[in-house]
């Protein structure tokens, strides 16, 4: 047997290109369904565990999937906005704890998540380095944000303009990094968390500027009457919140009018959750209250429908490839007639020929198996990140 393997090995080594092609074909055929299965299982785990741990999500009527993807996975697609009134009405119901979310802006490609400290307790997120949010203008970053941007506690992060063409838009806010979160292997690792009020500062709804009644540069005042002062755009608006200027930051209008993208509702118990769902069922209140698990189940059902289709395609391609491989071997036997004849002439039996060919196939399958195993280990190792990059975003 050893001599057959030796001769087969020598033959395969001599025909490197052909061997590499055969190994690649077998490896790909084996790896595709396995890797797909692994990634789908991981995406299901990630999507479902996040959805299962979020009992209810309140948002504007519209696409429930957009609402869930933005509220749970901080997806780029911002659903229609609601206001803080939604939080107040949930609070007033006494049935659930509301956690506001405002996921709209970005800082160096990472989503800025405006929320309250309740979010960190709800998701059991702990601080690995630094401290929790304390003052307006601070942020706490996910472990992956810290790693990819190479920033840490004490550094700062600029909010990005919503569009590059928004020349008359608000100034970017320079946020101080107060803490870095412990890695949680969830989308929270890839987020920049700020207090909900800081998110409104990023939008320009809460702002700080020099006293218009006593400006340093009098030319910023266009018009002044006893009751009104009109300043031009040169009025100094603060782009960083410091202990010196924090007192100048102020809100305008009713707090209930401030925007949100969603509200996580954590019912006191199952009964409270059911009552709450009943209240928002007709949509008259201008909101939709969704169960993220149901929405994600629907999404997964679609994904698995696609997966079944992919399985069928892979099966057909696999069969075709196997047939092609058989053809390659059959043709190679024909091409190697003289070589086989020589084996006969030096006293080799038919069985010896079969053993030689079997040894060649075994070596190819073995190499493919090893490569396949290495690739699967690699996919498994990075499945978390791969799923977030490929499927969740």
């Amino acid at each position, binding site marked *: 047997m050893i001599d057959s393997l030796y001769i087969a090995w020598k033959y395969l080594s001599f025909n490197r290109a052909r061997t590499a092609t055969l190994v690649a074909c077998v490896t790909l055929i084996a790896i595709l369904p396995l890797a797909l299965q692994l990634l789908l299982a991981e995406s299901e785990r990630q999507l479902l565990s996040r959805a299962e741990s979020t009992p209810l999500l309140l948002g504007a009527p519209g696409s429930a999937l957009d609402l869930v993807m933005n509220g749970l996975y901080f997806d780029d697609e911002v659903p229609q906005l609601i206001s803080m009134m939604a*939080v107040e009405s949930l609070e007033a119901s006494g049935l659930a*704890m*509301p*956690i*506001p979310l405002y996921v709209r802006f970005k800082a160096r490609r990472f989503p800025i998540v405006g929320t*309250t*400290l*309740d979010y960190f*307790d709800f998701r059991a997120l702990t601080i690995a380095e630094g*401290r*929790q*949010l*304390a*003052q*307006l203008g*601070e942020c706490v970053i996910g472990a992956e944000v810290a790693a990819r941007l190479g920033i840490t506690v004490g550094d700062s992060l600029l909010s990005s303009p919503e569009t590059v063409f928004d020349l*008359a838009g608000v100034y970017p806010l320079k946020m101080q990094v107060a803490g870095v979160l412990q890695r949680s292997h969830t989308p929270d690792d890839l987020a920049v968390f700020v*207090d909900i*009020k800081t998110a409104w500062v990023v939008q*320009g709804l809460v702002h700080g*500027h020099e006293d*218009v*009644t006593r400006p340093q540069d009098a030319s*910023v005042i266009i018009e002044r009457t*006893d*009751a*009104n*002062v*009109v*300043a*031009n*755009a040169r*009025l100094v*608006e603060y782009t960083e919140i410091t202990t010196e200027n*924090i*007192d100048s*930051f*102020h*809100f*305008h*209008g009713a707090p209930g009018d401030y925007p949100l993208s969603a509200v996580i509702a954590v019912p006191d118990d199952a009964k409270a959750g059911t009552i709450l769902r009943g209240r928002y069922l007709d949509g008259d209140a201008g909101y939709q209250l969704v169960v993220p698990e149901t929405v994600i189940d629907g999404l997964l059902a679609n994904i698995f429908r696609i997966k079944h289709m992919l399985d069928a395609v892979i099966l057909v391609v696999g069969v075709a490839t196997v047939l092609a491989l058989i053809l390659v071997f059959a043709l190679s036997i024909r091409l190697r007639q003289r070589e086989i004849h020589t084996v006969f002439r030096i006293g080799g039996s038919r069985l010896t020929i079969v053993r030689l060919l079997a040894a060649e196939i075994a070596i190819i399958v073995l190499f493919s198996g090893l490569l396949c195993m290495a690739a699967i280990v690699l996919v498994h190792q990075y499945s978390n990140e791969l799923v977030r990059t490929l499927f969740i975003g």
Partner: protein
Amino acid sequence: MRPRGIIRIVTTALLFAVSLAEAGERLSVYTVNYPLQYFAQRIAGEQAEVTLPVPPAIDPAFWQPDVATIANFQQADIILLNGAGYAKWVNRVSLPRRKLVDTSAGFRDRYIHTEGDITHSHGREGDHSHAGTAFTTWLDFTLAVEQARAVAGALSRQRPDSKDIFERNLTALEQDLLDLDRQVQEIVVTNPGKLLLASHPVYQYFRRRYGLNLQSVMWEPEAMPDVAQWSALARLLMEHPAGWMVWEGKPAPESVARLRSMGIGSLVFDPCGNRPGAGDFLSVMQKNIANLRRAYTN
């Protein structure tokens, strides 16, 4: 060692452990002003440790906590807010929303909105002003009762087993506050049209509840008013010839003397926003009422 000795040691250790556990179970309540601290202490008794981290002699309404103090607020079980725009620092820090209790939220529709701020506009925003809301709500003792009820409600939600104790203590506090309310009404009814001045605009709710004919200036008790302030007072007196000035703190003797020379007496009605040097909320209010009575009887 004898068995009896061992039993005694074990029993003592168990009792010690139980008392330690009970001590550890005390609720941690943080407040933004003294009236709320007083209400919470009266209602919770030994069930809670109530903290007002504002240093003495600083007005809690305009205080700004440092990061360490904010962290202490974040760790509390309950954070009692006055609402009505009191303690603006609350809007500039991160606090867990589920722990916040706005004690005046129940009478938001009865807030008094202050006017007179200059409106301004800049950038693409329209006209806006920084006008605010009067916040010394507790000087209307009926509103103070509502705030005390909100405190009791928050304590009961956090510690349902002790609800009866909280309710009992609340009833006693309500009686004390309503007694203050009755006393002020009895004083004011003797001369409903009596003209008064206030050194600072902090008596809006007090004025509304008890129907006082009171106009405010913007003086600080410890500082002698400047020429412009005296002129403004003279103009105000033309329309509102009051005989008494109500001060929020002990006034400077020179101010008292000059007012006396103008025929205006001085009395202190301390809003008691921070811990008093002596006594408690009730004793300070009793003293305030005694001072007010002096104005109405003279």
